Each structure stands twice: as structure tokens, then as C-alpha cells.
């Protein structure tokens, strides 16, 4: 399979890698070192965006797209009739360095199909990143995929070289996993996650004692869930995500709208990928991570799925109208965060500015706070900013009216990207 040109193989392996959503280069802060090449920026840097509006930050590539497994949702599954190709570790290293020096990328995100065995495959991945770090003295970002079922010693080695590691859960429940990925028992996915979470925590402890203690995946671990391939509700998904954040200290959970067309008969036939649902899940995810919401506040048995008409924060607020309006000059920061339309940065600016001056509508605008939705939930100096008092139904109509959101959205749109407050923009 390797008698193709380099460019042809690059195309095949890129094609096979592109369905992995994660491309973030954030969470690691490493200065350049003399004699080495590269550095990392804690906020991450996007270098370009493809025709589907997704950011390219890392060279996302597979070492090989050949695979002995047959996961129904995956283009690389054994039973899928597609061209196969492979790179040698040296080829990936060269490509990474060439792209990095031209500032196309922040680093490498390396994944692969499983060949021979999980251990053998993991060793191949580690060989690449070892070469990059030791031979090329590469200091840029590396995200390494952990192969489910790989030996714990190999997992530990991977984290010593990589900034971030990930194991994709892919499916929210044991049953779905058993049905669609028969070769990957749930334990083989969860066990390395647990191990990584433990290693990250202990490396962090060691670093507290000594600045020179070795790091372990300083940018943490992430995972990915496919949305819409199996019947789980949003509630199951959001609750799972919450558990991953709280118990495994996951840095990011990515949601990937299931792209139909892979003709495996174990899968549903959707007309298009459920992009709006994916978008709403990202919004709910943000509420968990940065806005102090708990999963059960957003969804419960009666309402197991997110409202597709508007964002989950507005949805929550409309169901809790009794708590509003709140006074912008005095309300606690935590409550301010729950006002629809007020993001973390706006809330921070409000809290800083109101220590010095009383805020009215004009001041809020000067701070750059967008009042379009927020005004219905705020008073400023005792004056209600929404005009006439609204009941629930009218409010819903008002909130919906201006939101003519196109169905195709990306998580990045949630907050306009700016360089400051990086941890809050969702790049993390």
C-alpha cells in the first residue's frame, strides 16, 4: 500500500483523520528553548479555517488508516472499502517540522488505525513523538492519541512526550459501544482515561514540590463523543460529560455530529449531520465548565433534550423568570453569569467597572456588553432595561425573533475569539 507518492498518501491519511474534531493547541505554556524549535501558547492558536469553518491548529494526521477493528461509525473500519496508506515515523517528523517552520501549524495531532495489536500501534505513535522531541528538539504542541487497550506503561510513556493525550469514548453508553464498536469494550476506553487522570494529578503534585519534576501531558486529556449515531438523549450525553469533567478532570469533551453516508447497516440513515444539536451541546458544555451550571439544571427526566430553538442558558432563564430581573450594579458575579447574553468576559468587566462607577445602559454599552437578550433580565440603577414587562410567552417570542441562526454552526462562534481571557473563549 506504500507505492503511492508522498502527496497521495498525505491526502489519504488526511481524509481519514479529519473526522476527529479536536484540533485545539491550548493548555500548554512552554517557552522556546535555545537549540530547540518551537513553543506553545496557553490559549492555543488557530492558523487557518477550512471550507467547513473548522479551525486548523495542528497537523492532524494518521500514521496509518489501516485498521484491524471494525467500528461502525469510523471511515477506517476494516470492512470499509477505501484506499489505505501509511507514513513512516521519519516522514511524519519531517512533515511536521516543515509545516511548523512555515507557521502553518502549532504542532502535531497524531492518531492511527490499529495494526497488529494495541501495544504495537501505541509504540509506533510514541516513536514519532520521541523522534520529534529528542532528535529535532521540537518544543511545539503534540497531541497523541491513546490506543484503547494499550499497556499502561506505554500510556505513561506517551504522556511524558505529549502535551495532550486523548482516548475517544465515541458512544455515550455501554450498549451502544457494544453494538457499534464490538472490539472495544468500554473498560478498554475508560481504564486509560483513569490512568491518565491519575498520572496528570501526581505529576502536578510533584511539580509543586520541584519545578524540574517531569511533566505529564501538561495540557491534560480530552475525548470525543459522536452525536446522533445512537439513540441516547442529550441528558445522557451532558450528564456523562459532567462526570468526565468532575471525576476524570477531563480538559475538553468534543461533540461530533454523526456524518451519515458511511454505509454501515448498524447505523441510522440521517439526511444530514445533526449540526444544530451539536452546537447546542457545545453551548450546554460551556455552561458546565464556565458558568457554574450543573447538568440536572439544564435537563431532567421531563425534558431529556435541549431546546433546538434557543440556547440552553436562555432556556433555563425563561423557566426561572421569578429570579429576574437582577440589578446589574449589585448582583453577585455568579448570578450575573446566568443572565442570557452575558458572557464571562462581559461579567468580569461589569464587576470591575461597577466598583468605580454606577452602571447605566450607556455605561454597559461602553463596556461592550451586548444587551440584545440581556436587557430583558436586567435592571440598572433600579430601571428595568427591557422596556415593558414581559410574561414568559412574550419573552420567548422576543428571544426567538432576533435569533435567525443558521443551522450550521461551530463551537467557535459561541464567543467571538479574542486573545485575552483565553481560558474563557473555549479554546481550552
Amino acid at each position, binding site marked *: 500500500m506504500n507505492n503511492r507518492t508522498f502527496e497521495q498518501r498525505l491526502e489519504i491519511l488526511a481524509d481519514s483523520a479529519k473526522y476527529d474534531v479536536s484540533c485545539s493547541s491550548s493548555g500548554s505554556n512552554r517557552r522556546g528553548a535555545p537549540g530547540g524549535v518551537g513553543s506553545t501558547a496557553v490559549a492555543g492558536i488557530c492558523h*487557518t479555517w477550512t471550507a467547513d469553518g473548522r479551525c486548523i491548529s495542528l497537523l492532524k494526521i494518521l500514521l496509518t488508516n489501516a485498521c484491524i477493528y471494525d467500528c461502525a461509525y469510523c471511515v477506517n473500519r476494516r470492512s470499509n472499502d477505501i484506499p489505505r496508506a501509511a507514513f513512516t515515523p521519519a516522514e511524519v517528523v519531517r512533515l511536521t517540522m516543515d509545516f511548523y517552520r512555515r507557521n502553518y501549524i502549532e504542532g502535531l495531532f497524531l492518531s492511527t488505525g490499529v495494526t497488529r495489536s494495541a501495544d504495537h500501534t501505541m509504540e509506533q505513535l510514541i516513536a514519532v513523538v520521541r523522534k520529534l522531541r529528542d532528535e529535532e528538539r521540537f518544543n511545539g504542541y503534540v497531541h497523541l492519541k491513546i490506543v484503547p487497550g494499550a499497556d499502561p506503561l506505554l500510556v505513561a510513556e506517551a504522556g511524558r512526550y505529549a502535551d495532550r493525550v486523548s482516548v475517544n469514548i465515541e458512544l455515550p453508553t455501554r450498549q451502544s459501544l457494544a453494538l457499534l464498536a464490538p472490539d472495544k469494550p468500554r473498560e478498554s476506553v475508560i481504564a486509560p482515561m483513569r490512568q491518565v487522570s491519575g498520572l496528570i494529578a501526581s505529576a502536578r503534585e510533584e511539580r509543586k514540590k520541584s519545578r524540574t519534576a517531569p511533566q505529564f501531558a501538561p495540557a491534560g486529556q480530552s475525548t470525543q463523543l459522536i452525536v446522533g449515531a445512537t439513540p441516547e438523549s442529550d441528558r445522557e450525553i451532558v450528564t456523562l460529560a459532567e462526570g468526565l469533567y468532575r471525576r476524570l478532570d477531563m480538559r475538553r469533551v468534543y461533540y461530533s455530529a454523526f456524518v451519515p453516508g458511511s454505509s454501515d447497516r448498524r447505523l441510522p440513515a440521517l439526511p444530514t449531520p445533526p449540526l444544530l444539536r451539536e452546537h447546542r451541546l457545545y453551548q450546554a458544555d460551556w455552561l458546565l465548565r464556565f458558568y457554574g451550571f450543573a447538568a440536572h439544571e439544564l435537563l431532567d427526566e421531563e425534558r431529556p433534550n435541549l431546546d433546538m430553538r434557543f440556547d440552553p442558558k436562555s432556556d433555563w432563564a425563561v423557566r426561572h423568570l421569578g429570579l429576574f430581573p437582577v440589578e446589574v450594579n449589585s448582583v453577585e458575579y455568579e448570578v450575573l453569569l446566568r443572565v442570557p447574553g452575558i458572557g464571562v468576559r462581559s461579567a468580569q468587566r461589569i464587576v470591575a467597572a461597577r466598583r468605580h462607577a454606577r452602571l447605566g445602559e450607556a455605561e454597559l454599552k461602553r463596556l461592550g456588553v451586548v444587551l440584545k437578550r440581556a436587557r430583558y433580565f436586567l435592571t440598572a440603577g433600579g430601571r428595568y432595561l427591557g422596556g415593558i414587562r414581559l410574561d414568559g410567552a412574550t419573552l420567548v417570542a422576543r428571544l426567538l425573533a432576533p435569533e435567525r441562526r443558521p443551522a450550521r454552526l461551530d463551537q467557535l462562534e459561541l464567543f467571538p475569539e479574542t486573545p485575552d481571557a483565553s481560558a474563557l473563549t473555549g479554546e481550552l
Partner: protein
Amino acid sequence: MTACYRYDGTLEGFLCALALCLESGGGEAEFLRPGAESGAGLFAGVPRDVVTERETALRFRERFVTAVSRDAFATLRYAFHSEAAGVEELLWRYVLAGLKQGKRLERMLAQEPVCTVNRLARAVSHEAHRFTGFVRFREVAWPVGDSWGEGDGEKGTTFLYARIEPAVDILAFIAPFFTERLNDRDWMIHDLRRSQAAVFNRETWRLVREVELTSPPGYTADEEVCSRLWRSYFQRMAIPERHNPRLQQQLVPLRFRAHLVEFGGEES
């Protein structure tokens, strides 16, 4: 009457002008870049020429940092590079407010001039951040008889050359970033709009003004291969079922594309 100062257009020069303003009592002031005319027309006084001295500029910075804070000075610096009309006068008011209010200045977010200064500073820092991603280096062979980089480029070797056309003046912010990141090659980032360049010789970078290329850059054979690989990789990464060129255009506005290899920019 409004005092009028003519300075060399650099941040250092501007800081010296500010120091001079303070010395002469701190009244209303107008600042002129080289070639600019006073807005006061007939009533304009004779502009004073400001001498740019590093020492004076540093002393002024120290004074402001002590009185207000390091962050406030950083804000001033970013805002200055916005090149917005009247930004000098705005910053002069910012400095006066800072010397009076001290540390409180930074929290006066909802008041002028702090609010506008912050907005300008954010715009510059945003543009600089974008270009940490959008700069595209291309490998170029040293032209024969060239003198860039003070003779560091021996013939037969190569260096990395990038062209940008940012909306505001960001070289001073991105050059240190690339200095740290790419310290094993000579490179040059050329701001075509302002005809200036950041030039790095593997040790330090410096700003060179009035840079004009006399001939088109000669890309190396490796460069042609690498940029072709990048273009085809870029094409492949898009998922057809998620096609969304409008979102793409929002994220990579057209003004950036002329120099982005993956958008076909700079094809020679």
C-alpha cells in the same frame, strides 16, 4: 493655546513627546507625525520638534508604571499602535488621568478616555494574535549581492520570508513571539502596508523601515513542494457534509487571504 509637538512617529518618540508635555505643565497638546499638518490651521503654533532619546522614553515609562501599573502601560502601547486618528491626544489624556487616579485607572472601564483606549488596545492585540496564526513563512534563497541581516546570509543558504498586510501596526508584538519560536533560522516578516520589516538573524530581531523588495523573492524547490503539500492537506481537511463557506469567511476574512498559501495567495 494648544501646544504642538512633532515627533518621529515611533512609540519611543511619542513617549519623549509625552515627557516633554509633562515638563511644560501638562496643558492641551497636539502631536504630529512626520509630514502631518496641524489641525488648528491658521491658529497653529510653531510645532516643537521632539528629540527621540531612549533614556527619556524609558524614564517616562518607569514613571507611568510606578504611578499606575505595568498593565496600563501595556494598554497604552497597544493602543498607540492602532494608528487611529487622534490616538496621541487620547493617550495624552489617558496619561494625565493615570497620573491623577493612580491604580484606579484600570478599573475606570466605563469612562473616557479609558474605555476608548482599551477598545483600541484590544483591537491591536486581537490583530496581533490573529497574525501569530496567519503569518506564512516561505523559504527563499538569499538573493545575490544582498545585504539584509548584515551579511548573515551567506550565498547558497536560505531564509524564511513572510509578507503581511495587517490593519494595524503589529510587528513589534509578533516579532518577539517568532523570535522565541523559530530561533534556528534567519527570517523576515515584511509588512507591505507600512514598508517595514522585522528581521531576525538567529540572535535578535530588529525593525527595519522603508523596506522594498527590488525583485520578487526566489522560492526554493523545497518551498514549492511544501506549499503544495500544505494546500492539498488543507483542501482535504474540510468535511463536505459540513460545507460552510460563510462561516469560513467570517473566520478568515478576505483581507487575510492574499498572503495565505492555502488560499492560493502568493502563487508565483
